[in-house]
């Protein structure tokens, strides 16, 4: 499959058209369920498990009363969260890699043609001496999407879990996770860890909001259980899929080599950089808006449109 036909559809998964429609919907009355419709509504909200809702408990997100006006803080936070979504590559993850760097890290090397998974055929450029070569153009695209998604998740203070079952890289991945302040699971995956979490991990535990698979297969060359369980629990996944892996259940697959140490180290480095970058950006933006908010309440009153200065600050450091 040519990258060109895939690309627009994938890129169209962005967030350009929806906001307008949402604005229209917002002014309408809430659905037939009414203010006490916390049952289905809250179920719906918690079904999606958005990270920002748990990270901003001070927001009145569960208040069913439509009459109350949003507080300035909520407005500010809403702006913090919405601002990155208006740009295609807010965190500029494209600059972190290039097709050349992927090639140098041997990301394009797949397994032998006999190991090929049927669903990976679109991503394979060709086969040389019976070894599959992955199309790095597509890889670059998918990688950009995946890193962008990861960055957004990290920006919104989501819990990111690195999963792999390759003992060769287990130590490296755990170090990477620890260094960016996220979590790792490169050990034996207990059965109901995600699906039966209240029992195994604690009564009111918070599940990961994103799972990143450095290796999609486990030690017996079967798909890792967490792929299926994450899909069951509606947890989005990012995964590096080799030519013998099944990319179907993974939300943001990255076709690439997961066996060579340089390739795995490159991916680890990329994920670490994006997550750190996103968290830095979050801190900056929060500080900025807090400053803005203080000035606003002192001088001019409640909700103010963001000044052009702020917009310029946001524009700095990234090129959309």
């Amino acid at each position, binding site marked *: 499959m040519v990258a060109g036909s895939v690309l627009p559809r994938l890129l169209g*998964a962005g967030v350009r058209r929806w906001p307008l429609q949402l604005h229209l919907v917002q002014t309408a009355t809430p659905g*037939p369920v009414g203010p006490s419709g916390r049952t289905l509504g809250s179920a719906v909200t918690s079904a*999606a498990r*958005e990270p920002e*809702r748990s990270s901003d408990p001070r927001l009145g997100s569960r208040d069913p009363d439509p009459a109350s006006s949003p507080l300035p803080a909520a407005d500010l936070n809403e702006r913090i969260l919405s601002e990155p*979504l208006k740009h295609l590559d807010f965190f500029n993850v494209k600059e972190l890699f290039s097709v050349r760097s992927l090639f140098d890290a041997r990301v394009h090397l797949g397994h032998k043609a006999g190991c090929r998974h049927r669903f990976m055929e679109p991503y394979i450029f060709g086969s040389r001496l019976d070894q599959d070569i992955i199309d790095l153009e597509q890889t670059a695209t998918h990688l950009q*999407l995946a890193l962008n998604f990861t960055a957004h998740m990290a920006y919104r203070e989501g819990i990111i879990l690195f999963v792999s079952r390759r003992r060769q890289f287990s130590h490296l991945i755990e170090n990477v996770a620890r260094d960016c302040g996220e*979590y790792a699971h490169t050990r034996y995956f207990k059965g109901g860890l995600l699906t039966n979490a209240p029992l195994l991990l604690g009564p009111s535990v*918070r599940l990961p909001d994103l799972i990143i698979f450095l290796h999609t297969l486990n030690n017996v060359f079967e798909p890792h259980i967490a792929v299926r369980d994450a899909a069951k629990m509606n947890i989005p996944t990012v995964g590096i899929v080799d030519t013998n892996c099944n990319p179907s259940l993974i939300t943001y697959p990255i076709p690439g080599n997961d066996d060579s140490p340089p390739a795995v180290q490159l991916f680890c480095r990329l994920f670490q950089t994006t997550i750190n970058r996103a968290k830095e950006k979050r801190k900056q933006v929060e500080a900025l808006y807090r400053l803005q908010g203080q000035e606003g309440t002192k001088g001019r009153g409640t909700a103010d449109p963001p000044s052009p200065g702020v917009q310029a600050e946001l524009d700095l450091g990234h090129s959309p």
Partner: protein
Amino acid sequence: MAALRVSCGAAASYRLFLGGRVSFARGQGLWKAAAAKLQRSPGCQILRLRHTTVVTTRKNVAVLRRETYTVDFIKKQIEEFNVGKRHLANMMGEDPETFTQEDIDEQNLVQHICCVERTGPKRAALGLQELPAIQWGEDGRPFHFLFYTGRQSYYSLMHEAYGKLLDVENRQDQLRAKGLFSEKTKARDPIGSRWLIKEELEEMLVEKLSDQDYAQFIRLLERLSALPCDAAEEEFVGRFRRSVTIQSKKQLIEPLQYDEKGNRKTAKAKVAVYDHGSGRIEVNGVDYLLYFPVTQDRSYRKLSVSGSCVLKCRLCHLCFLGLGMGSRKTTKTNLDLFHSCWNSIPVEAVLLQIPVNSALLSSCCVHPHQPGLAPLVCSPRGGIQLSASLEQLMFPFHFLDRLGEHDVTCTVSGGGRAAQAGAIRLATARALCSFVTEDEVEWMRQGWELLVGLGALPLTAGAAGPGASPAFLRFPWFIKASLFMLQRDCLLPIPVSESGRSRARREPAGSSPGRSAECLGGKGGGAVRLARGGRAGGRRWQGEAAPSHLGVGN
């Protein structure tokens, strides 16, 4: 497949964005409307499925209580409280009218402790188990980066240990690259420290471990400690070693006291051990062989020997190999026991001249000056019996490889023969403590413990457990020796010649009391037949005369 992914992706990012919008107060209304809108659009079945999933995992209790505290609300709460109070009183069997706040508090406490309090003395007082403390912060993010594995302490320990191993290896590689690498072998003190046991590790980590996990961890630590470590790594490994309290130090070993007392059952023995002796043991003024006659304790350690045989043996009362050969007509037979011992006990030849037709010890004469007498008696049926009591007496000496070096004088009273034997053994062991170094003592003790643990030695003297074969027969070197002999299937002839005997006798006399290990088989010796039990159980061979130069002296 691509289409599938697109809609997934669309849904994911759509949810993200919706989430951003949802932060307003009219959250659910927005969702409902949006869901309705989506359902109307054609190709979005997957999205509809998502929206109707009910997944409630996060119950941030503090967050859910966002109701405004209006007067009506408060009144309603008061009513509910009163109703609940009466209900509680009814449940507890109390009178609803007089159910005071204190009672409520008490009941609340109980339920609170059951449900909310995870650890503490109150839980223990109620007989409830402790739950681990909450391991995440206010925002729900866990504190430890390995929280989602389920066993964070154990895995973080493994991670740390492996990290240290990698560091050491890197350092070695660097040294090797610079050419400064030197092979340094580390000798960890074999006595004095041991690895943590599984229970101690579980206690340290506050987590349940399985045996495989424990074994894996210990293997990793051993691998780490085998490499040349830095001070930091040594300290890390040292955290998981416990010093073995050298209990023998606790015994007051007075320096030059050779007299010792021993008690066993109701027998009391007092023993005086003299250095530079020749292995003579006197009990109550009588030679020990006479004092503990074989006929009195029917020991199971009986090897049957057929016919006349010349056996050379060195005292190892734990084992001996006998040769049997020839006809049974052995009236004047010199029995030499060949003995092979794979450890460092020097094998000396001892000649016993025991008239076969006498089973009484009184008619048995043992060469007085030979070190390491074999307490053997040959019964007319052809069995050689080893007295259990005599073994016990010899045991301390044997263990310390000092079989022929000490003279012992003991007085014993009370109990039966076996008990007296045990008492004497205890006393001799205690007395011998003065002669040996501390390390040796500790080694003795640990060795004994090890052998007992392995099941090679009985826990109490004379005991072998139900259905167990005699301990010495289970010793690997014994088995090896006998198997070797059987394999070679060559039998030692009777060395009748005087020269042979004297040569054999001379050899051990000249041998140093050093600890030289040697084996009978290695010297090209013949096979030694081993026959257990009496006539019924034993296997018989027709043998040849054993050349005496196969004497095993060094």
